[in-house]
């Protein structure tokens, strides 16, 4: 499957509140609350305002968390991006 490019919601649209192991994300555009676990908040952080696909995201996360960028992270990130898109938190660019 093609590595789709996504863009995260603008930062001021979201209110992110860590609650222990969960993170509650309130989307001011949809008025919806999303309860997510790692790595969703980290993905949104790493995307910032840029258009990202799973490959570029893997590279960013690897750099941010000082990990080796591995090929097998990409399908997982692509799946997470699809889930975030279904929630409306990221949008296909």
């Amino acid at each position, binding site marked *: 499957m093609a590595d789709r490019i996504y863009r995260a919601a603008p930062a001021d649209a979201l209110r992110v*509140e860590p*609650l*222990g*192991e969960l993170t*509650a994300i309130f989307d001011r555009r949809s*008025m919806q609350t999303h*309860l997510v676990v790692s790595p969703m908040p980290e993905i949104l952080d790493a995307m910032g305002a840029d258009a990202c696909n799973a490959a570029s995201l893997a590279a960013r996360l690897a750099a941010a968390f000082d990990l080796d960028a591995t090929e097998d992270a990409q399908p997982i990130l692509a799946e997470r991006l699809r889930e975030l898109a279904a929630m409306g938190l990221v949008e296909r660019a």
Partner: protein
Amino acid sequence: MRHSTRIAVGPVQFRIGSDWAEPIAALEHLYAGYPQDDTRPSDATVRLFAARPWRRWLRPSVHIGGDFVVPDALPLPLSMGLLAAEMGMNLQVALGWRRHMLLHASAVAKDGRALIMSGESGSGKSTLAALLGEKEGGGDWRLMGDEFTLIDPAGGNAFAFPRAVSLKNEAIAEVAARVDPSRLGPLLAATPKGDIRHLIPRADAIAAMHEPARPALLLFPRFGGEASVEPMGEGEAFVRLTEASTNYVALGEAGFAALTRLVRETPAFAISYPDSAAGIALVEQLWAEAAK
């Protein structure tokens, strides 16, 4: 409508209309000690009505209507008119009230601080609150409500909704043994929710119904099994309270802010208990720690 009355419970002013005199008379008995302000317009309307004119007399059955209606709700026999009124009032609050975040939870307060208990029906949250509210000598718990607790989104305080307590099944005898019979409504036997009897809250609880209380302890009780206490994380408490709130989604960011604040500032526990006495003991013990 032919018969009507007005009742204020906490911040909500109801007007209740009925095709029959009996439910209104029963309500006026239960709510006689509540403050009356005739200059205040009503926030919510409840209607108890007969689907067809002749059904006022012939096998009279009470339909529940009002500002908000459950389309497929079955009518109740006239003998359960008080239950119909209670269900109608709950429905209007659950679906229509927007000033506070509504938690389907009971609450009691002491020294301006609130203990909030959330759980499904059958969890014993109502009974625990009623028993705490009646406790002799053990302190001065104020009953805030057996069904709804209101959280002010701006300040985070809890507000009371002390409607007449709806005692069910075994709880009826348990509470009736401790209170003046004049504070009990008629026994409604074999309703769809079991046997029901209403308890009029103590006069001081009614008089203090507008006083806020700071949430100090969140409990998620479960009736049955060994006595146990399980601390609950912020995330789980958040999830369970969104499920226990009837208007969380409708409040938007104000609801989100109120709920995150509530679960962060208030210690939360899941508790199990085999009987009321053990439940009360657990609650008092957790309160003593939380209120330090």
